[in-house]
């Protein structure tokens, strides 16, 4: 009697405890499922390609851009994401797309091209339209360190074959079971016993979902029980459709360094570079194959295994009547088709800049969890050109100067100087590798890159112009009672009296130091600050030769001001941020501010063109197209540790740095190292030539380039045209018409001019 009561009591107690346990699990399960189900990393997009009549892109170029966005060539424009090309005409079925300022529906676009440029755009009704754009490419997301990354898809965005395939392979009775499938477990045990290894799991999709939500992968009996109870509870509360959708968005499908690839939406982009809705049978089967073991069946690293399992998936689909056997066989004949490297997160240096920009306005959690959409200025075309050019040229330079130790490194920043858009950032070789970002973090002495700002400061005093003669003569400056600074020219020679234009073009150190000391270190330091340095540099005479450590991005900020006519233009990687429900949150508008006299900047820009024509930038002429006017400056740090080149056309500015991470001597000057990369990059970008109109306050004169004396065709074999303020009238070169003919009435004015020349010379 007593015993029976005891048994009943303990049984009741046990049931009570079990009920409590189940209740707790129930709470946990519903909360997880109904509450914030997934944290959504911010999605980052490149700039969309704007199309308009006159844009210099051929039909082949356009096709390349479409392929970059994973459009497929098709005979029929059946669905968005396809295009048809016949000769010079391309018809595109554009996908629906979200832009920073517009939600665009899927639509047809016809692009006519003529002689390597777009000649006409027409919409789906055949009407001509002034412009259109391709959708912005997804370039990555901002996910927490060691965190999950995913792109959420709605059931409408899921191709129906995917859930069908998942059921066929993972959970045949999904539609009817209540969360667990005892038959499947038995089958799995039997298959296991026979094959000696796990070929088929006994877990339902619901159990897999629970495991992914809550549990560590450790397999213990207790966990199995807990998992089963939770699966039953989930099924009791939610519909099969909801559970399938949750599964599709939740499941782990790959690893990319610290980044865990979750859900089929992201996996589709990660492995195939296109939206889930556009996958074909073979590609869907590949993703379903990966479910079973994302690292074991990694289609990039273990293509053979992945292929075998994909074929098994296809066979199961055919066996169960989901697809006709012929279709399955056809799909089995396809290659895996995964992209060479993962789309997204492969512009780490650029994303780094985006992240740093956003951290000023957003908390880390906002970025990694709330599904922001971030629209950037990255130009994928220019970015990949910059990466390729840097890799190729560094490999070549490594062969030229073979050194032991880590290979030569480099960084590139490209901007659109008028708007301040940062359009490409390369942080090192193997740009896909998310390592040390040299473009943003390598602070190196800039050498002669500082010089244009000294010349600008000099011109702004009104005491100098491009034709003014300065003395390239030995310099000796006492820095401390027993410390004498005696810089030299690169060639260890001195050049005597030279015009400003030549001193800058040939990067003469002594002339520049003399000029800078005449202008004053204060003035030079302030000028640099105005152009965008965060702090005024130390007033050390060595500043005049570039004893100033800056990152390539800092240099891009400074030179963007020169390229934009003396307007400091805030560099910006991000254009706009919108919320997950498409509300505009933050815009980063163009921001320009005049920081220098525009005439003086014009003169400096013209002198920087002579760098390219006659000076240290001259080798670029062999690479750049004829008539493509560019301006630029080389920089080399002491002992050839850092090789720089910074310069611009009318539409693009590029800064290139190369050197070793451990600061070893490279053996390259700016000209022999960075310039090659710069000029090849500028040539492939194309763009427009530099052409700012001559300011009304300046006039052109021609001078003899070596001496700076006034000259004209016939009396000098090295003429250069320079813009100078009116009234500037250098001494005439002997032998030029109108020059010193003794005994004529111009003798007095000649004397005046000679006096002025001498005066200039002593300055």
């Amino acid at each position, binding site marked *: 009697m007593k015993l029976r009561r005891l048994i009943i009591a303990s049984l009741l107690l046990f049931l009570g405890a079990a009920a409590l346990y189940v209740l707790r699990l129930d709470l946990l399960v519903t909360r997880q499922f109904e509450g914030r189900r997934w944290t959504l990393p911010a999605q980052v997009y490149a700039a969309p390609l704007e199309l308009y009549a006159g844009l210099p892109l051929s039909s082949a170029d356009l096709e390349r851009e479409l392929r970059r966005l994973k459009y497929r060539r098709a005979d029929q424009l059946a669905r968005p994401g396809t295009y048809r090309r016949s000769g010079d005409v391309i018809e595109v079925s554009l996908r629906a797309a979200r832009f920073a300022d517009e939600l665009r529906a899927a639509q047809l676009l016809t692009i006519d091209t003529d002689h390597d440029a777009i000649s006409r755009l027409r919409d789906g009704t055949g009407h001509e339209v002034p412009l259109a754009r391709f959708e912005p490419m997804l370039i990555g997301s901002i996910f927490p360190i060691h965190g999950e990354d995913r792109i959420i898809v709605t059931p409408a965005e899921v191709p129906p074959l995917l859930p069908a395939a998942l059921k066929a392979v993972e959970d045949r009775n999904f539609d009817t079971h209540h969360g667990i499938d005892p038959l499947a477990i038995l089958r799995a045990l039997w298959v296991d016993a026979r094959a000696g290894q796990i070929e088929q799991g006994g877990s339902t999709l619901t159990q897999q979902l629970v495991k992914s939500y809550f549990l560590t992968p450790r397999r213990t009996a207790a966990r199995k029980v807990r998992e089963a109870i939770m699966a039953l509870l989930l099924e009791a509360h939610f519909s099969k459709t909801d559970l399938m959708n949750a599964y599709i968005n939740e499941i782990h499908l790959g690893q990319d360094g610290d980044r865990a690839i979750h859900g089929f939406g992201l996996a589709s982009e990660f492995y195939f570079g296109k939206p889930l809705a556009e996958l074909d049978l073979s590609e869907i089967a590949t993703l379903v194959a990966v479910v079973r073991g994302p690292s074991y069946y990694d289609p990039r690293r273990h293509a053979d295994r992945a292929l075998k399992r994909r074929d098994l998936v296809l066979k199961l689909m055919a066996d169960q009547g989901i697809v006709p056997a012929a279709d399955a066989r056809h799909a089995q004949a396809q290659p895996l088709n995964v992209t060479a490297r993962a789309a997204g997160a492969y512009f780490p240096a650029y994303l780094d800049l985006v992240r740093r920009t956003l951290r000023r306005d957003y908390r880390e959690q906002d970025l990694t969890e709330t599904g922001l959409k971030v629209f950037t200025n990255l130009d994928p075309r220019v970015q990949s050109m910059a990466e390729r050019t840097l890799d190729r040229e560094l490999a070549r330079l490594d062969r030229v100067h073979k050194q032991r130790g880590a290979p030569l490194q480099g960084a590139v920043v490209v901007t659109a100087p008028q708007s301040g858009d940062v359009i490409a950032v390369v942080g090192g070789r193997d740009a896909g590798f998310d390592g040390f970002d040299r473009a943003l973090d390598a602070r190196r002495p800039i050498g002669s890159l500082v010089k244009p700002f000294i010349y600008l400061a000099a011109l702004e005093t009104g005491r100098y112009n491009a034709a003014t003669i300065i003395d390239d003569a030995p310099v000796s400056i006492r820095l401390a009672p027993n410390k004498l600074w005696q810089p030299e020219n690169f060639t260890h020679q001195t050049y005597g009296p030279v015009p400003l234009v030549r001193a800058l073009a040939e990067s003469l150190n002594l002339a520049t130091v003399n000029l800078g000391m005449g202008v004053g270190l204060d003035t030079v330091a302030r000028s640099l600050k105005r152009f965008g340095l965060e702090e005024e540099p130390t007033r050390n005479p060595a500043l005049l030769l570039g004893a100033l450590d800056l990152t390539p991005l800092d240099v891009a900020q400074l030179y963007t001001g020169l390229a934009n006519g003396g*307007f400091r233009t805030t560099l910006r990687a991000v254009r706009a941020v919108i919320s997950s429900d498409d509300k505009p949150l933050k815009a980063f508008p163009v921001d*320009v501010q005049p920081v220098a006299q525009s005439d003086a900047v014009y003169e400096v820009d013209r002198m920087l063109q002579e760098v390219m024509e006659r000076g240290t930038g001259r080798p670029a002429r062999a690479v750049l197209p004829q008539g493509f006017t560019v301006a630029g400056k080389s920089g080399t740090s002491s002992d050839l540790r850092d090789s720089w080149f910074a310069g611009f056309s009318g539409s693009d500015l590029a800064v290139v740095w190369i050197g070793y991470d451990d600061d070893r001597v490279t053996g390259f000057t700016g000209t022999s190292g960075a310039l090659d990369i710069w000029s090849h990059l500028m040539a492939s970008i194309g763009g427009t030539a530099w052409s700012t109109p001559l300011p009304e306050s300046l006039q052109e004169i021609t001078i003899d380039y070596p001496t700076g004396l006034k000259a004209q065709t016939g009396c000098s074999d090295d003429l250069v045209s320079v813009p100078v303020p009116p009234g500037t009238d250098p001494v005439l070169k002997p032998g030029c018409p109108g020059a010193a003919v003794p005994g004529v009435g111009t003798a007095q004015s000649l004397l005046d001019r000679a006096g002025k020349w001498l005066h200039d010379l002593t300055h």
Partner: protein
Amino acid sequence: MLVAGFAVGCSMVSPPYQQPSTPAGDGRPEAAARAPSSASSSGSAQPGQPPPQPAREYKLGPASAALVSQAHTQAAAGNPDLAAATIERALRIEPANPLLWIELGAVHQGAGHYAQADSMAHKALQLAAGDPRAEASAWLLVAESLRARGRTAEASEADARAHALGAR
């Protein structure tokens, strides 16, 4: 809006802008086009004189013109941020067209960003050298932005420059 109207007034009919300006002869861009302009349209022209013959005349390409008119609609609907973003799209197509800088400046002026409007008007002036109509619109914008900041004397000077260049 006055400024914007003036700028759009001289638009719509040009070939696309993107092609690199091929320098003539001496390897310097547009040296030939520049020479007469610096003589004919110096900023100190007197009121009452007939406006100088334009040495060049900026126009908006069709794509920019479409974007500018879209921006006007957006600005009129009280959405200056969107309007600015739309004109920035046009600026990516024609970064050196002073008319677009005037348009962008006008949007900022309308949104109360007077200093930014002033900067953009000056950016336009730099690019517009030799095009008195564009220069005149830029000076009108300078005047507006100065007036909005209470700098009336300087504003009148800017206005006078605009009128000397032929602004009505």
